[in-house]
């Protein structure tokens, strides 16, 4: 392998560390019995939509259920109107192009095809790869407008459909594995609420370095 010699010069301790690990692992450590099969760690999810909505409340995020794309556009317009002046960053995707056209916001739009969101963005609008009922989370990847789209602006708006709901983290992660999402994206993130801190006296402050508001516009009909 051509890479080996390069790796050795750039990584003088690599072989030594691996050797030490292997030497250490020769010591046999007795293993206690494994988990009994059939033990259920998390409560099974019977109604993913209901659970997702409940978890959104717990995560201090807003979830607006809409019937069709016209209603979603009205909801988007309403949220955008409530924000201070400034541009909105939007993932360049046909579905969001249509939605923005319907919502016709008064503010300037910056599309993700024009580059990353700037510091002055007041809102970002993106799609999600999936919604996770168990934890009230949205799953995004670099394809959803990039890495900064879900964290730079004070308000992140996600446009999703009920069909994107998966029951739990396990199913969301195995879907990521199966669809090789992490080979086609350098980044993915499970987002469960707006940014927060409790570093001062353990008091919860909503809106730390990332968004203060996370809004999910959840459309029931595709």
């Amino acid at each position, binding site marked *: 392998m051509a890479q080996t010699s390069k790796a050795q010069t750039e990584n003088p301790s690599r072989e030594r560390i691996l050797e*030490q*690990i292997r030497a250490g692992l*020769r010591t046999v450590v007795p293993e206690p019995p494994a988990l009994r099969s059939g033990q259920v760690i998390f409560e099974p999810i019977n109604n993913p939509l209901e659970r997702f909505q409940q978890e959104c409340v717990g995560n201090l995020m807003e979830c607006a259920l809409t019937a069709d794309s016209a209603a979603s556009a009205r909801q988007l317009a309403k949220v955008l109107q409530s924000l201070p002046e400034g541009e909105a960053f939007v993932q360049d995707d046909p579905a969001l192009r249509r939605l923005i056209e319907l919502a016709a916001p008064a503010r300037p739009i910056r599309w993700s095809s024009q580059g990353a969101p700037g510091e002055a963005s007041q809102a970002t609008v993106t799609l999600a790869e999936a919604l996770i009922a168990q934890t009230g989370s949205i799953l995004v990847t670099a394809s959803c407008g990039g890495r900064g*789209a879900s964290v730079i602006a004070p308000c992140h708006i996600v446009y999703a459909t009920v069909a994107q709901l998966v029951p739990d*983290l396990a199913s969301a992660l195995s879907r990521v594995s199966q669809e090789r999402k992490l080979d086609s994206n350098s980044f993915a*993130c499970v*987002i469960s609420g707006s940014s927060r801190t409790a570093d001062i006296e353990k008091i919860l402050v909503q809106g730390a370095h990332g968004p203060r508001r996370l809004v999910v516009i959840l459309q029931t009909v595709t």
Partner: protein
Amino acid sequence: MSQTAAQRFLHDAAVKSADLMHREIIRRGMDSYDVAHLKGRARIKDWEAARQKCQEIKREAVNHLDRYLLQFEEKVIARGGHVFWAANGEEACTYVKNLATRLGVRTVVKSKSMVTEEIHLSPALEKAGIKVWETDLGEFIVQLRDEPPYHIVTPAMHLNRGQIAKLFREKLDPGIGSDDPADLMAAARRILRQAFFAAEMGISGANFLVADAGVIAISTNEGNGRLCTSIPRIHVVVTGIEKVIPRLEDLAVLWPVLATSGTGQGITTYGTLIGGPRRPGEVDGAEEFHVVLVDNGRSQLLADAEQREVLHCIRCGACLNICPVFRHVGGHTYGTTYPGPIGSVLTPHLNGIKEFKHLSYASSLCGACSSVCPVKIDLSHHLLQNRRNATEAGATKSSERLIFRAWRYAMLRPRMYALGGWSVRKALRIIYGLGLAGSILDPMRVWNRYRSPVPLPSESFRARWRKDLGAN
């Protein structure tokens, strides 16, 4: 003569446990953690099964550490990332420093990473003239105070809002009027925003390295970790070799368990996965992606059949929070990167048993730490084993060995033991009678200095046993 680590520990422990304001701040912080933690645990249907699952995942990973690290490395390199293996802190710091110098880095933004504290990365970079911003609010606060983190999850939990507001006024902006936590966060956000957009390099840790997917996983709430890994053109991950886990799906249980044990949340706000530099066609992300795998004594623990499981630790801080010793002496007293029970177990392995054996005694062996550990590390027994190891290694003082030899001698000779007990009772009665309790002449000074003496029994246990106790 300079103080040993043990002398300093005893001194600081005495000072801190008598500091009523410190105790009040910690008590309040821990009380709200306790409530959240128990509520969080109740959300998981079978907490014990969850702990066991996490233990099995970490055991599987640690028992095949070489294989999983190589799998992770291969994936990262295939995506255009770099992986550097550092045998110790110095190698890791030199690598990051050289990288920063080569790429013309002047400003670094950091998200929270205990491994970078362990290897003293920030001072190394600052010595090379690079400005380093800690961006986690708690880390930012302790950085402004020029202090190490007090706690591995909440670095500034020893301060109240008034102290933090005063610090911000002194160091950042004299105009900060309010001491409301939300306003203090907003002030930090304003300043750090400029740093995020100015920095050429972001440095993060990793909570997990996922072998099959070849990605790092970072859990953060504030979003600072997200910004550090999204905006700057270089992203460096500094982490320990033991952080690897076999499969992406393992996070389905590790994430909720880490969040529950760390803060009581069902899941941390951002569970971020990053596998390499920005791909062609992606909107943003670092152009350079480097992972520094730090050994720094960890691989030596693998050969320790009793304590290999110490490498399972996911740094949630639950053992610190429940520990009655931590709650009284506080995080800084330990004088180590990792305080609390896990630090007391780990530090003698990483930094030497001779200098840090005293930490094995900073425990009542109550076992609370073992009972909360989400990956079921038997911490209290490891503390006991470290005491034994220190003794066997001859790390104890000759005076201590002499006392124990005398005690053993007396224990094997009942008359001698009775005589010893009798003379100590007599001597103490005289000393206490003269009002010398707690003075330099009092053999019980360690206890009596800060407390009223325990009343002396009028007769020995053996005498009481003969008279009435034994009759029942």
